[in-house]
């Protein structure tokens, strides 16, 4: 194995420290978690600021105006119309002033107008038209009971999907009290919804456990590196883990002593 430099190992230790600090949240809010939380907020905000500057503003605005001159307000660049979004963006900054902050409503209005106008036909097509079209599908009557136990391609399953969609839609009906026949259909709808939610919850468990296993692997790799490396590595490793072991031990002692003092009373 390639020999790691102490510097890289220290960075690895930082990663391991913050991993453990974040896990410590599961026990309770504590200074380590607070540290991790506040640091990651600052760093990620800075990270996105930089990414937006280098990968957003530069290609989408600066590069498009760069062949113009600032003293002409970039109006002589090849795409002078890109000044408009820059002005609109700058209007957002009027929010720093109490008196002029209403100007910022213009770009916001634009933003929301574009977003909502964009959404209407797209969502109508993707969610309503599409799904409606696939709901109106043919049932395999010839193979109604399917092959074997609970065949999901069998006719009865296809029929159930159709009935499920219709009754789920009935459940969401707001204008009518759930009474009579309506109640029956809406109840069937909510059953289907609940069964669907339950199964998709159960299905997700596997993926979530693997997330934790990946973190165990990271800590495992870190430990292996420390134990196969030099004494310095081992020392750093002991410190990184030691902090949390001491903390856990302290909490354990507190837990035990509290129990004892609690029993007499």
């Amino acid at each position, binding site marked *: 194995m390639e020999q790691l430099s102490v510097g890289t190992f220290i960075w690895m230790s930082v990663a391991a420290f913050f991993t453990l600090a974040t896990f410590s949240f*599961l026990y309770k809010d504590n200074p380590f978690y607070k540290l991790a939380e506040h640091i990651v907020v600052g760093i990620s905000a800075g990270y996105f600021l930089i990414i937006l500057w280098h990968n957003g503003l530069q290609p989408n605005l600066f590069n498009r105006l760069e062949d113009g001159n600032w003293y002409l307000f970039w109006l002589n660049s090849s795409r002078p119309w890109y000044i408009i979004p820059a002005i609109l963006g700058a209007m957002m900054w009027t929010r720093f002033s109490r008196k002029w902050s209403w100007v910022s409503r213009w770009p916001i209005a634009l933003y929301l107008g574009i977003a909502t106008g964009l959404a209407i036909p797209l969502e109508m097509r993707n969610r309503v038209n599409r799904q409606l079209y696939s709901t109106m599908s043919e049932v395999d009557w010839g193979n109604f009971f399917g092959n074997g136990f609970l065949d999901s*391609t069998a006719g009865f399953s296809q029929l159930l999907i159709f009935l499920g969609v219709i009754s789920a839609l009935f459940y969401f009906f707001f204008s009518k009290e759930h009474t009579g026949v309506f109640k029956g259909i809406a109840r069937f709808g909510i059953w289907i919804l609940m069964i669907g939610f339950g199964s998709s919850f159960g299905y997700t468990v596997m993926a979530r456990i693997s997330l934790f*296993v990946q973190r165990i*692997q990271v800590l495992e790799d870190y430990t292996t590196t420390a134990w196969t490396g030099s004494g310095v590595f081992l020392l750093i490793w002991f410190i990184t883990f030691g902090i949390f072991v001491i903390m856990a031990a302290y909490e354990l002692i507190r837990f035990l002593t509290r129990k004892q003092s609690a029993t007499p009373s």
Partner: protein
Amino acid sequence: MNIFDRMMSLDRRWVFLFLALVCVITHVVPFSIPIIITQEAKSIYSFIDTLKEGDIIFMAIDYDPNSLAEMHPMTYAIAEHAFRKKLKIIFTSLSVNGPGMADLAIRDISDSVKIGKTYNGVYYEGREVVNGIDYIFLGYKPYPALVIVGMGQNFRLPFPTDYYGTPLDEHPIMQGVQNYDQIKCVVDISGTSGVDMWITYGQGRYNFPLALGLTGVMAADYYPYLNSGQVFGILGGLLGAAQYEKMADNPGRAVDGMRVQLFAHIVIILFIVMGNVGFLLSRRKARKD
């Protein structure tokens, strides 16, 4: 506070602690768990297991690094099994980011085959797996549909040379091998929609036996092809890989992963059952009172 109430309102930190311990222990301590073998996985294993020494199979490694955790164990399990049986393998990778990963996997597998091991009671001598004799890696070419159809005519059409730049005819393995007619089966291990192309353009046109290895999420969508006989076997996700490892008596990362998964699931289910028993009993008690 009686025991039922306690079962119902256990501090969640006990749940966390218990789950974490179980995950860590099952991850670190190697022990074997029973794995149910499904028919669709078994048919792949027995197909490959009954091939004769020197037969050629074709493996398409069509996944990206981001589905590596689920798909890699399949590649390892199937390829190692085939090499132990002294079969020859033609590898391709029809996913852009696949070749580097596939190359690494092939080296890993050949390293592992060097050591002699006993599987299902039979001792297999360690042996050197040689590029060009035991396997060939054709690499990546764009337009998967065209490549798949092209290989149906002749492997040399889309791939005049292999991944390492050697002309195909210089490899002994390719002597007399023209197209799918000379290979026994195609195993497509895929995390992408490339699998549809193998079904329509490959199996649909050239009628070779096709087996699929798919991610857990994708697998359910491809069972209809199993029923229609277009595909003779499916491995679904980590679970499918673990089944193959089990059948080949070669527990590896998939079985390791499943061990954690299985016990983590059992722990969660136990807690749910415990909460419910407490709930039902305390409710009955409340009714009596």
